[in-house]
């Protein structure tokens, strides 16, 4: 940072940036505040910003109205399960393309990318019918499967870009010392790849947690994750804003924290390495 900047400019820019940041963040803040109001206060005009009777009754009500924990567990199982399985399939594939590339590697990578471009709605009908016939509608396994395949291209791509940065000399040295490919994978490559794998998991858990096309279309109650649970507030009964806010705050809080840790990987994962 060699740029010389006047104090005045820094002051103006700082105020401006904080203002813009606040406006962009405001809907989330407002939702968080509403979750601690009573239903009447949440609906009142003029609205109260900070000086209201803070209450946590909405959080209890959300669990009581419809089993919140059940849906949260579904979200964890579906997001975690789909990413874990995708990882098991993708690590060998990414290893192969990074360390034993062939003439077709580039084409295969681009082809995988293009499968991600297929709009889900283009295959909604067959997937729905297949799921109906195999009894996979509203089942966790069904959702794990569809989200796993949906995110597989991103997982492979991200791992590939991380693996490619591992210096090949290290692997060759290990091979000279007589390590087999298996040993090399476990003892040399994996420890060096842990940060990359962790970033991949982070970003893809976020994507799977927030996925709202397949979850809305393929699950209703038993297997419904939080996206579907929140959608049930779209046909409200009575005053519901405070409860909606409490349920929403709970649904996004864990992922917001994870997301803040994954800022850098976000760019890499979502642009397929086209922006660094």
């Amino acid at each position, binding site marked *: 940072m060699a740029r010389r900047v006047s104090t005045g400019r820094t002051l103006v820019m700082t105020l401006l940036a904080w203002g813009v940041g606040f406006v962009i963040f405001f809907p989330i803040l407002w939702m968080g505040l509403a979750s601690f109001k009573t239903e009447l206060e949440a609906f009142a005009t003029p609205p109260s910003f900070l000086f209201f009777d803070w209450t946590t009754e909405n959080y209890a009500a959300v669990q009581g109205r419809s089993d919140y924990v059940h849906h949260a567990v579904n979200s964890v199982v579906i997001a975690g399960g789909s990413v874990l399985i995708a990882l098991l399939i993708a690590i*060998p594939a990414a290893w192969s393309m990074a360390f034993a590339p062939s003439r077709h590697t580039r084409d295969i990578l681009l082809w995988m990318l293009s499968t991600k471009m297929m709009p889900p709605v283009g295959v909604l*009908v067959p997937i729905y019918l*297949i799921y109906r016939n195999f009894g996979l509608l509203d089942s966790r396994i069904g959702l794990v499967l569809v989200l796993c395949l949906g995110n597989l291209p991103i997982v*492979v791509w991200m791992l590939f870009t991380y693996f490619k940065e591992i210096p090949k000399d290290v692997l060759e040295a290990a091979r000279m010392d007589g390590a087999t490919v298996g040993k090399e994978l476990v003892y040399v490559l994996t420890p060096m790849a842990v940060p990359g794998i962790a970033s991949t998991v982070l970003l893809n858990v976020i994507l799977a*947690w*927030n996925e*709202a096309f397949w979850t809305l279309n393929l699950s209703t109650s038993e297997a419904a994750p939080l996206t579907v649970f929140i*959608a049930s507030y*779209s046909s409200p009964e009575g005053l519901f804003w405070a409860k909606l806010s409490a349920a929403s705050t709970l649904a996004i809080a864990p992922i917001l924290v994870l997301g803040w840790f994954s800022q850098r990987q976000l*760019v890499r994962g979502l642009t397929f390495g086209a922006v660094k």
Partner: protein
Amino acid sequence: MTEGMRGLGRLLLTPAVALLFLWMIIPLGMTVYFSTLRYNLLNPGMEGFVGLDNFRYFLTDPAFLASLRNTLVLVGAVLLITTVAGTLVALLLDEVIVGRSIVRLMVIAPFFVMPTVSALVWKNLLMHPVSGLFAFIGSSLGLTPIDWFAEAPLLAIILIVAWQWLPFATLILLTALQSLDEEQKEAAEMDGARALSTFFYITLPHLARPITVVILIETIFLLTVFAEIFVTTGGGPGLQTTNIAFLIYAQALIQYDVGAASAGGLVAVVLANIVAFFLVRLVGRNLEA
């Protein structure tokens, strides 16, 4: 490289390739097949081959033209808002500011909010015509509050979706800005270039590529916006917020018309592929470097 390595490489690659291939080809093949059938789940046993009738029906349906128009307006407006505002916010965050990392956290937060949450929170807490915050701010300024989802439903959806995607554009453009050579900018400043000309002759050309990437990737996701419409308007009033994705959903899972929905699905695939073609080429070029 040894022959053994190559064989092993192929072996390890196979599961991923095979699964993705099946995931692509089976449903897509079924969609193509269904699109040539008269097939309604409400009239089982009446299936029959009808050639291209479903396409004729889907493409000449007034709902298709309306939803195509809505899709284009939605995608275009969100792209315009997010790239312009995203560039401005990224430039701002690239300045020397106190507490930049906290501001950054606030700016990217909306991206991590699940679509059903952002849609319902905006619709109720912010855009409600009587008790929403916008109505309160509007009437405090002496304006007549508007009923967003009755008077300007598509605009309401556009605002919600733009809010969700602004962080994505900002973050990518900021990453690109930070890789811009400081010395280059300083040299321009020393040569007496004014801030505006530095922006147009140095910064903007540097951002051309990342902006293209943002536009292509956002387009692919924006073409199939679904949850936001599903939980707020259900495509209405009338067809005012029905986009192609929602139309196909309605045809498939509300009217149970498998044939027409499949034809529509293929139309969506073709639309997405036009965009994908350019994106894949762009990424592929980068892969060789």
